[in-house]
């Protein structure tokens, strides 16, 4: 198994991607792969095909996407897709982590790809949040907003909010570039910088120092709030003050 992976990596020249990987693939037994194949045939093959080669215009080939892509897509509930649309939205995951690992093992066995990151790779406490902020601002904020509140893309696609996303899924998203997102490989953003980004996003979970954040989507929600709540309450008061006692 490992031999096949290494050979494939050498042939396709993606050794750099595969090198820090192979946690899931390493530990995956033949049973896991077989169970994964069965799950895949029952839940994924109608679009991706029994051999995971994909169909033109329907679903991409999954050969070489790696365990990380499976863990992200299935773990966030994006796959299996519920309905066709501009992009697959996150929803409650359909499988438990064991099943996801089985699926990941099978897909990883089809061709070398990025593996699920280790707990240490995604540990926010080991990252530098200040550097993470700079990396995030340069690479992520244009779609996800200044602290990851999310934003719109073209034609109904969108960059989702990252405020509820787990560190592992954030790491995997950067590594595999799901949906409309570009791939940020390890040459682009190093694993340490990826962890810094996670640390920055994790720092947001403490909440805004200024109080409730109104969605952290910028001045539009603030303006709406100023009209509806601030002016609304005060106009309510004018009616009260202006009312005659009689």
């Amino acid at each position, binding site marked *: 198994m490992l031999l096949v992976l290494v050979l494939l990596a050498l042939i396709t020249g993606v050794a750099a991607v595969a090198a820090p990987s192979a946690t899931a693939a390493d530990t995956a037994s033949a049973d896991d792969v077989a169970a994964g194949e069965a799950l895949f045939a029952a839940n994924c093959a109608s679009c991706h095909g029994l051999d995971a080669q994909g169909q033109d215009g329907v679903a991409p080939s999954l050969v070489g996407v790696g365990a990380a892509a499976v863990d992200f897509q299935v773990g966030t509930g994006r796959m299996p897709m519920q309905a066709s649309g*501009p992009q697959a939205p996150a929803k409650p995951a359909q499988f438990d982590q064991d099943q996801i690992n089985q699926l990941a093992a099978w897909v990883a066995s089809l061709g070398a790809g990025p593996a699920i990151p280790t707990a240490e790779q995604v540990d926010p406490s080991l990252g530098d*949040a*200040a550097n*993470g*902020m*700079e990396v995030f*601002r*340069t690479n992520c*904020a*244009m*779609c*996800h*907003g*200044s*602290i990851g*509140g*999310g*934003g*719109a*893309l*073209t*034609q*109904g696609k*969108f*960059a989702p909010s990252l405020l509820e996303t787990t560190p592992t899924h954030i790491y995997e998203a950067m590594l595999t570039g799901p949906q409309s997102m570009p791939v940020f490989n390890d040459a682009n953003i190093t694993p340490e910088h990826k962890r810094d980004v996670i640390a*920055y996003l994790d*720092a947001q979970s403490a909440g*805004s*120092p*200024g*109080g*409730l*954040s*109104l969605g*952290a*989507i*910028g*001045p*539009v*929600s*603030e*303006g*709406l*709030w*100023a*009209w509806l*709540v*601030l*002016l609304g*309450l*005060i*106009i309510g*008061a*004018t*009616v009260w*003050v*202006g*009312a*005659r006692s009689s």
Partner: protein
Amino acid sequence: MGAKVNTAAAGTANFVDDRTSIGGFVKFFARKLFPDHWSFMLGEIALYAFIVLLLSGVFLTAFFVPSMETVEYEGAFETMHGVEMTKAFESTLHTSFEVPGGLLIRQIHHWSALLFLAAIMTHMCRVFFTGAFRKPRELNWLVGFTLMVLGLAAGFTGYSLPDDVLSGNGLRIIDGVVKSIPIIGSYTSYWLFGGEFPGTALIPRLFTAHILLVPGLILALIAVHLFLVFLHKHTQYPGGGKTDRNVVGLPLFPVYTAKAGGFFFVVFGVIALVAALFTINPVWNYGPYDPSPVSAGTQPDWYILFVDGALRLMPGWIFGIPMEWEIFGYTLSMNILTPALIMPGLFFGFIALYPWIEKWATGDRGEKHVLDRPRNVPVRTGIGVATITFYVILVLEGSNDIVANLFHLSLNDLTIFFQWAIFILPPIMFWVTRRICMGLQRKDRELVLHGHETGTIVRHENGEYIEVHSPLSEQEVWLRVQHEDIAPLEIAPEYNEHGVRRKGYRWDRFKQALSRFYYEDRISPVTKAEFDEAQHHHDHGHAEADIQAADAKDADKRLTEEWDKVEDEASK
């Protein structure tokens, strides 16, 4: 004790009065009358928001450093450690995280700014829809309009001061807009920014504008605005006993001093409550200004959104024709110039000149102190609603990414929708509003002539059903018939009897066309003759109907009794 205080107060008052003769003024102002209505307090909200802005602003100037010198951050906010930033940004973080109460005051200041402009615009709408801008208040409308524009300037300069990424992107757009002005554009941009954008001169300049120039002008114009309110006396809503020659209301002292004084604290309290609970402009999220990153959700504060929206709305090509032209090697960017300068220019020009436009249509030279009910001037009300629709479409387009994301819509489709809607919806809204107003006027006529419906139906002996109406009170009638019935202008003919062409005929004809647009289709209020006739007719009908109603009740009672009897017997 009480007597002692009284003597002391009287002594002080005497001392001051002997030296300043202020007693007369106090007496004059204390007896000044103001009519009572909640909508007359909208301008007051703006005034109080401005006072809160001044108070909180003074606090902030004590800690803000208007400098673009760069430093490395070492303060209390951890995710910013070691980041290079200007002193302006650093001092904003310092105010927010290290100065006790600093963040609260910053948030009070910013929320007040949003409220200030929202209150100004609501106040303007009230003045517009009730016709309070008519003679003699056209000048004060202009003063108020200028205050609104100054408010935008105060807001934008303040929004840009912290030198964060968000406001820096806004300044970059301003820079682009300035550069789109033909011939002088690039020179003006260099002059404003003291060199190539962003330069190092801007923050100190914005600071001077924000804390000295603009608030100074606002303060002076507020004084003029209030002085003119005193001079003209306050307008009043129509009602029995209220005319263009009197003011029906309560005296400034003690009623309004108490109400207005208390209301200031209500406004301040609500602002402080919201500022304590809700984050506004979290610059620590945006980071110090750097020209390269532009994050999603990059928008100006709401009052500038309409310009941003116009820029987003403008297509680069219209039906295949590019909107950026090159003339003798110089670029003319109509795709920026049109939405960001020409549109706001026309829009604001129309708002500023509106009192005169309507004056041309009415040809009325008299003073108006009794307000219009919006329904009684359907065309003005329609224009107002169309203008608001136009503005709201621009604001929504300025927020198009937020709207698209929130409602799971396509950003592109939304923009295309707004590109059509901006031309189609305002005329539709004008037409609909005008029809609704005329419908309400017809309803008023109906009420005055026939009275309120009571829901009591009676049947005549000949089988005819009629509904009993109760007459309106005198006040109710007055409210519905008091307004003027304005007919379209009649103008003198083009040639006099000698066949000589009259000067100014074209101008008159324009005014006549305008007047026809306003008053061609109109519902006249019920005249005295019509009212008397209806009363006469009714008195007759009423007496009859009342007798019949009584009869009907009797019959009903009899029927119930008989039914009870039958039931009793059956139970035995």
